[in-house]
């Protein structure tokens, strides 16, 4: 008996169900989570851009407000300088007043072209700057400081427009980091507008640093300002200011992207980009916007992780909640499934018992009307049906065994009545006789018999009861006993014997059984054969040197049907070498697998084919032929053959 494979038990249905539901839920959860995460990131980024833009915009506005204020002064001064000729003292006072007028201005100069103010003087550039609370006036221009060769002077002159200089560390004037707004001024000479010099206004960058440093974004985000050359004007890292440009940083970090960003900033573009910040050392986002008039760019930089810190924390929390939820969900599913499958498990245990053959075991009661209840109900039905079936099968087996034992009894009865000792009469040299009966599985009622009536007469017979099993065997026994008894009581007339036997058989015969019989009495001294037939197949006779022929038999009805019936006797003379072959219909009616009959013709051919007339040889040849013909098809009836060979009246002749 097979036992349940152990791997079936390893994961229970409950756990399996739990895992499957969990897997499904996880997929849905993961999809929702990822979608939400992506969406919130995008929204956060967009918010950050907006905030950075506003912040940068506000800062730019504040700076530009100061710068514009500063720009107005030198522009006004240039205008004034173009209006009329100035006295040296007036000019100095004019410059000093400008500083007084705008406290943002650190210093201001009016630098004339060489020899333009005073034809004797190469340099003429009065410069006023603050020193503490006072305003100090100096002169620019020396052999070491030829101002008209410097950028702040040449560039506006060549470009014919006011402009801001690159921030610089002022050596000539204020000794602070500044930037200068330079405005060219002209004079009409001979109807032509001729360049006269540059008015400058210096502003110190400390206020700018203050404004820009005040900008903070998230935790460590900051703002910085770069000049039109990319130089850092303000930066939280003071070491960078005026020493490094954004391109230096890009160079140092070998970051092409940063260089491109720097170029865009210098170009005056606005943008929002992700980059690897060399100063923060991590992925960051940069919003940049230009300061129009000086051509500078303000950048607001903040690290990405801070931007998404909230989102990440939220994501972590959601994941944690999800995880806890999943564990709870799993437990609930396992509990529910365990509850649902409990009857099934009980059923499985019970069926294992049933499998071991215990069909009387009670199935666990399942009250639910669901599938499990149905299964349990169906299983109980099956158990009952199985029990009944097995009981039926046992009964059938017993019945079959009984039947088989009955058939065995029938065969025993049948065979025990037959003479089986061959040669039967070794002292009688006049004839040889051999007979063989092969009972079918169901046992028909074939019979044969032979005995000496006296020292000259041999009685022999063959018969077939038309039924099977024990009744046929008993009927055969009765027939044979009657026939022998009657024959031995002095009957030399076969017809008389038949009539007597028939009468006895018909008495009290309630069954429909009958028996066909051929019987004969041979005077083996003379060779005279008398015989009678009761519905039996006519025997074959083979005269010495001839082909076998059917023996002409008198008509006679089968024994056991009609009581008062007359039978006739026929006679012939057997000569030395003649053979009689008696057989039952089991021979001629033997079937091959395609249900064709062996037939009389085949029997005759087989008998003709045997050269040796020894009875045993003839009988065995016929059996062999029939068996070969049947080719394994089941034998449906008893097969009996009796052969009698007559040697002649005198034994001394042989």
């Amino acid at each position, binding site marked *: 008996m097979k036992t349940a494979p152990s791997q079936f038990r390893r994961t229970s249905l409950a756990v399996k169900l739990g895992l499957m539901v969990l897997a499904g839920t996880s997929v849905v959860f993961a999809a929702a989570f990822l979608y939400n995460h992506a969406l919130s990131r995008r929204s956060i980024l967009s918010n950050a851009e907006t905030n950075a833009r506003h912040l940068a915009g506000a800062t730019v506005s504040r700076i530009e407000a100061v710068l514009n204020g500063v720009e107005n002064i030198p522009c006004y001064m240039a205008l004034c300088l173009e209006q009329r000729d100035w006295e040296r003292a007036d000019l100095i006072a004019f410059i000093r007043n400008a500083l007084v007028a705008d406290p943002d201005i650190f210093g201001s100069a009016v630098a004339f072209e060489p020899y333009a103010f005073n034809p004797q003087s190469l340099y003429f550039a009065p410069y006023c700057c603050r020193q503490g609370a006072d305003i100090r006036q100096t002169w620019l221009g020396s052999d070491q400081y030829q101002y008209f060769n410097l950028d702040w002077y040449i560039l506006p002159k060549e470009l014919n427009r006011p402009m801001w200089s690159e921030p610089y560390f002022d050596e000539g004037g204020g000794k602070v980091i500044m930037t200068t707004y330079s405005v060219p001024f002209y004079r009409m000479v001979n109807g032509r507008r001729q360049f006269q010099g540059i008015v400058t206004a210096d502003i110190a960058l400390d206020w700018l640093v203050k404004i820009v440093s005040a900008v903070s974004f998230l935790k460590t985000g900051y703002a910085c300002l770069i000049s039109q050359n990319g130089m850092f004007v303000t930066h939280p890292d003071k070491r960078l200011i005026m020493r490094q440009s954004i391109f230096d940083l890009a160079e140092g970090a070998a970051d092409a992207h940063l260089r491109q960003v720097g170029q865009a900033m210098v170009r005056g573009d606005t943008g929002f980009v992700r980059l690897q910040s060399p100063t923060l050392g991590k992925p960051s986002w940069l919003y940049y916007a230009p300061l129009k008039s000086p051509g500078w760019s303000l950048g607001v930089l903040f690290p990405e992780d801070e931007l998404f810190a909230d989102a990440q924390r939220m994501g972590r929390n959601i994941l944690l909640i999800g995880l806890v939820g999943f564990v709870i969900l799993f437990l609930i599913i396992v509990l529910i499934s365990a509850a649902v499958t409990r009857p099934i498990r009980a059923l499985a245990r019970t069926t294992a018992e049933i499998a071991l053959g215990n069909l009387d075991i009670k199935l666990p009661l399942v009250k639910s009307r669901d599938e499990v209840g149905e299964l349990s109900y169906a299983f109980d039905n099956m158990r009952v049906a199985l029990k009944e079936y097995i009981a039926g099968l046992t009964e059938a087996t017993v019945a079959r065994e009984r039947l088989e034992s009955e058939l065995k009894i029938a065969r025993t009865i049948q065979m025990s009545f037959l003479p089986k000792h061959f040669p039967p009469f070794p002292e009688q040299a006049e004839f040889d006789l051999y007979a063989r009966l092969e009972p079918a599985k169901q046992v028909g009622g074939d019979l044969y018999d032979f005995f000496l009536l006296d020292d000259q007469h041999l009685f022999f017979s063959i018969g077939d009861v*038309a039924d099977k099993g024990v009744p046929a065997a008993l009927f055969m026994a009765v027939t044979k006993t009657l026939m022998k008894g009657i024959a031995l009581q002095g009957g030399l007339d076969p017809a008389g014997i038949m009539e007597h036997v028939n009468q006895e058989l018909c008495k009290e015969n309630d069954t429909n059984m*009958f028996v*066909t019989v051929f019987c004969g009495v041979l005077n083996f001294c003379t060779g005279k054969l008398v015989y009678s037939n009761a519905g*039996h197949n006519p025997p074959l006779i083979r005269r010495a040197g001839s082909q076998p022929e059917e023996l002409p*038999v008198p008509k*006679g009805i*089968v024994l056991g*049907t009609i009581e008062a019936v007359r039978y006739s006797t026929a006679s012939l003379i057997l000569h030395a070498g003649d053979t009689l072959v008696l057989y039952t219909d089991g021979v001629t009616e033997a079937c091959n697998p395609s249900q064709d*009959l062996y037939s009389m013709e085949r029997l005759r051919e087989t008998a003709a084919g045997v050269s040796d007339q020894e009875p045993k040889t003839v009988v065995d040849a016929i059996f062999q032929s029939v068996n070969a013909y049947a080719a394994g098809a089941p034998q*449906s009836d008893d097969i009996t053959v009796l052969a009698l060979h007559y040697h002649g009246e005198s034994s001394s002749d042989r």
Partner: protein
Amino acid sequence: MQIIIENKSGAVVLSIHGHFNAAATPEFERILNQRLDAGGRHFILNMADLTFISSAGLCSILASAKKISERDGSIVICALQGEAQKVFEISGFAALFSICPTEAAALKQLDAVCLP
């Protein structure tokens, strides 16, 4: 074996085809008993297509004939030929039953017997 059942002028005609051996007797007896129970009294066995009859077949016919006569019925066998005819003759059954050469003759014989 195959049995074709017909009703012809008050008689049940059973045409028996093929081998009438031990295996075929239960079917024959079942049909005959059924017809008897349904009130059939006069039977004709048409043996025109009978290829072979064994002793079990004869036994079955004999048993049926007894049953029919117990109920005051009659049975006629017709159109015997070949092996089957030989078996009937050898066994002496030819003398036990009314045998007619054709079905028409059998019907005629039954008419004569059954005429009120």
